[in-house]
């Protein structure tokens, strides 16, 4: 069985602490940089990639691309400023997709 790795992409202050756990932490200064990093990491053997919510808009295409495959899982986490509600919206859209209607 392949051993996979876990990566965290985000602003320096938000994700610095994860380094101590032994995760692969990549800093991104802007959305473009985050997108490129994500693109590269998704093709390596990372099973879980955490991405801070602030970069989710810039990485939308990449996230959509890996949504329907089992590996990697791209998971949004709140950045330094707290939750932006992006993850909640993604959850809502998944429900909508499954049910075929907005049920909230």
């Amino acid at each position, binding site marked *: *069985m*392949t*051993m*996979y*790795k*876990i990566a965290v992409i985000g602003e320096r*202050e*938000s994700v*610095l*602490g*994860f*380094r*101590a*756990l*032994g*995760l692969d932490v990549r800093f991104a200064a802007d959305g473009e940089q985050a997108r490129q990093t994500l693109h590269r990491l998704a093709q390596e053997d990372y*099973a*879980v990639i*955490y991405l801070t919510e602030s970069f989710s808009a810039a990485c939308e295409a990449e996230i959509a691309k890996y*949504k*329907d495959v*089992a*590996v990697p*899982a791209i*998971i949004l*986490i*709140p950045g*330094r400023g*707290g*939750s932006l509600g992006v*993850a*909640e919206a993604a*959850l809502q859209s*998944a*429900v909508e*997709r*499954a*049910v*075929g209607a907005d049920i909230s």
Partner: protein
Amino acid sequence: MAGKTINPTRMELTRLKGRLKTAVRGHKLLKDKRDEMMKQFLDVVRRNRELRRKVEEGLQRAGASLSLAAAVMGPEMLEQSLLCPKARVSLDVDFRNIMSVNVPEYAFHTEAQQGDLYPYGFAQTSGELDAALDDISAVFQDMLELAQVEKTMQLLAQEIEKTRRRVNALEYVVIPEAQRNIRYISMKLDENERGNTTRLMKVKDMVLQDAHRYST
């Protein structure tokens, strides 16, 4: 008839009846699959909400203690302390089958070199940093489960969408069309049968007329 013409033959009728039977059975099975997946999906969504709230709270707390540590020690020192992590994390991915959807299950291994996870000496760092790292490692377990649940949710959503489309296609297109065609063929065959009978009666009349000059 819907678009294409079909041959009103007995063979075609048998074939269509077989198809209708398969379609009805498939429809029932897919509908059951959809319902069961929906049930699972809603559970997963609920769990996802719960975990996300927990993770968000945990990260908030960790972020707060980390900035506290940065304030006490200075950002450069903080970064230096974390530069060289002691632990290494690797991840085992297993797949579980929920209604023919392969969803991942993660099991992670931390290879810490020594018992603790603090990758620095205690002389130049503050206690706040220790607390921050404790917070982060506490929230990480939840983060991993969140990843698993969220991926499961996405994969299930995709499969449910696909199944729903199939159910609808069978219910509203394939089955009605087969029924319509079967009705068409059987009516056509009945009509032929009646035509045949009338023709025979007519011929019989003519034959009788010829033979006996007998008329009805």
